[in-house]
């Protein structure tokens, strides 16, 4: 029993940790793209990677101040969104999907390649770029703090606090945008582009604005992740993260302001709870070694999440916050 409480506490930390912030920001961006505007971005992680490496390269390689690194990260994410959007947004939705998935994988391979090693650090990545940010914390970052039975370092707490602040700001931004006439236009574009064109709206501009905004939010996710881990390694930015963020978004409810945030928190909680809980059950013999051992846990927990998502789509296709009537319109 104490094992389960322990697992619950460890999972509780994941619920609020910087990984949940990372996925929440990725998912808020995807929500702007896919949930509201209907853009299929399958390479959100590329924006996050530019966010993380934007800071890492600026600070550890070029010796620039941390905040200049943040600006460079923002700028490069915007440039990437424009480069992705310019050729594809006039075409059907599939083309953006193809291009984004290719760019996400291509950029990661480029960053880890030998020829890029002088800049990106190659497969070993870069580190020691978050010092000046951690030093801003108003408390002692060397000490460990005990909150609700979980142990946090001062640095972790600081990153989580600022991270959730960023999540809150972007959530408010999306909320305000989506209740404005601007939001009405992008939602209409999701439904039918041609109808919106026939009503005198420049669909291409709106899609580009949405692509840039969502990519920018994803880049902030990458920044939080890089600062939280204290290192930027190309292979951390596997494109599987994009699809986990999609999972979080669908779990929470697409085209809902809080959907991606709550979805990411729950996803991370379940992953961590399954991990710790399963390990506990294996170590005290509740699960026999012949079934599976603790080395399989990392894979099994994703199986559990997959089953959970399947059950969700069967019984609650609109996600936690979604409107069932709205989702069912598609089924007609």
């Amino acid at each position: 029993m104490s094992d389960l409480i322990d697992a619950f506490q460890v999972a509780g930390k994941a619920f609020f940790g910087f990984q949940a912030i990372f996925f929440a920001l990725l998912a808020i961006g995807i929500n702007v793209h896919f949930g509201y505007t209907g853009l299929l971005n399958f390479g959100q992680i590329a924006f996050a990677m530019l966010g993380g490496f934007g800071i890492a390269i600026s600070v550890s390689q070029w010796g620039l101040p941390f905040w200049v690194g943040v600006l460079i990260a923002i700028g490069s994410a915007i440039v990437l969104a424009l480069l992705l959007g310019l050729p594809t947004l006039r075409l059907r939705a599939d083309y953006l999907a193809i291009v984004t998935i290719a760019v996400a994988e291509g950029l990661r391979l480029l960053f880890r390649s030998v020829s890029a090693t002088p800049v990106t650090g190659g497969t070993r990545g870069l580190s020691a770029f978050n010092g000046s940010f951690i030093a801003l914390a108003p408390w002692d970052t060397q000490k460990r703090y005990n909150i609700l039975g979980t142990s946090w370092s001062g640095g972790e707490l600081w990153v989580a606090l600022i991270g959730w602040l960023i999540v809150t700001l972007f959530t408010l931004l999306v909320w305000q945008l989506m209740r404005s006439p601007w939001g009405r236009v992008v939602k209409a574009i999701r439904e039918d582009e041609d109808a919106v064109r026939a009503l005198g709206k420049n669909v291409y501009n709106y899609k580009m604005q949405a692509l840039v905004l969502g990519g920018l939010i994803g880049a902030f996710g990458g920044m939080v992740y890089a600062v939280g881990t204290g290192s930027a390694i190309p292979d951390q930015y596997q494109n599987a993260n994009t699809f986990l963020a999609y999972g979080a978004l669908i779990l929470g409810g697409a085209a809902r302001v809080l959907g991606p945030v709550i979805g990411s928190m729950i996803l991370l909680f379940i992953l961590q709870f399954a991990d710790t809980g399963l390990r506990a059950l294996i170590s005290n013999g509740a699960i026999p070694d012949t079934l599976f051992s603790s080395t399989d846990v990392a894979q099994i927990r994703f199986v559990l999440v997959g089953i959970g998502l399947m059950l969700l789509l069967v019984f609650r296709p609109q996600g936690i916050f979604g409107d069932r009537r709205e989702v069912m319109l598609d089924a007609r």
Partner: protein
Amino acid sequence: MPAEPTAHGAHAAVPDETPAAAPTRESAAGRVPQRLAQAALKDLPWEVGVSKPDPAIVVDKVTRSFGGLTAVSVDHLEVQRGGITGLIGPNGAGKTTLFNLLTGFDQPNTGTWSFDGRDLGKLSPHQVARLGVVRTFQLTKALSRLTVLQNMLLGAQDQKGESFLRALLPGAWRRQEKENTEKAMDLLRRFKLDAKKDDFAGILSGGQRKLLEMARALMSDPKVVMLDEPMAGVNPALTQSLLGHVKDLREEGMTVIFVEHDMDVVRDISDWVVVMAAGRIIAEGPPESISQNKAVVDAYLGAHHDAPLTVEEEDRVLAEADAALGREDGLPPGRPGTDEISSDGSTR
């Protein structure tokens, strides 16, 4: 839109029209319909490419081909301002393609066309719409996961809140939004959709979607309304009310161009009818001239439909008919509705 305020005023005077009492608004307001365009077009010769006294849209030498197929090849066409022009023709005649070209949804291989003397040749669809030329679609495009009211508000032009930065400042667009909502509710009442304003457009019936699409187009205060088969798939009772709405547009001074297959409808409301076949305009004239026109009859029924058959041909036709009957096995012959979808898909 000089005629617009009076039309709204007339409507506001009778806020709760009952369906039976007010088939059209001009009768409710005690106005006599003024068919100015009809009078203006009375003395024109019934020939293709004839010039109109006051053309709103002028089309010159527009061609569009898809591979080897010439979908549209229009030498000269003028559309009278303030009138209802019906565009008819057999399936695959190029009517929808011509619509797409005129509204910027498709680019022609050659040719020019203008609206109020302004060249529309290189404009994209939203630029054409901003000039006041709005269209509806053959396959209705209701925006399913937006409410009926949101659909309507989308039609309003020059909205401050539609720019990204101003969207963040509700004070900048709230008043305009309120005005637009009032205007939208007026239109919804007129189209009898006001009770459904908070429903998703996706749950409306086919006929209600047609009404919504037309009402949404009117939100932009258009000068020209182009309706692609407004009556297709609408039940006869609703057809009457849609017809009334189309006639209202003319009374408000708008120019209406519509594609339709139902000849009764075309005869009822058109001031002028343009007939297309195989991409060309084969006849023009007032509605009553069309059924007598030999080119039109040929286009619809085939050029040799009344020529006597030789004995061999008759035998061949009979044998084909027998074979067809044998194949059919209860399958109904291709109905116009099903033909339509396939022909449209191929011409798009």
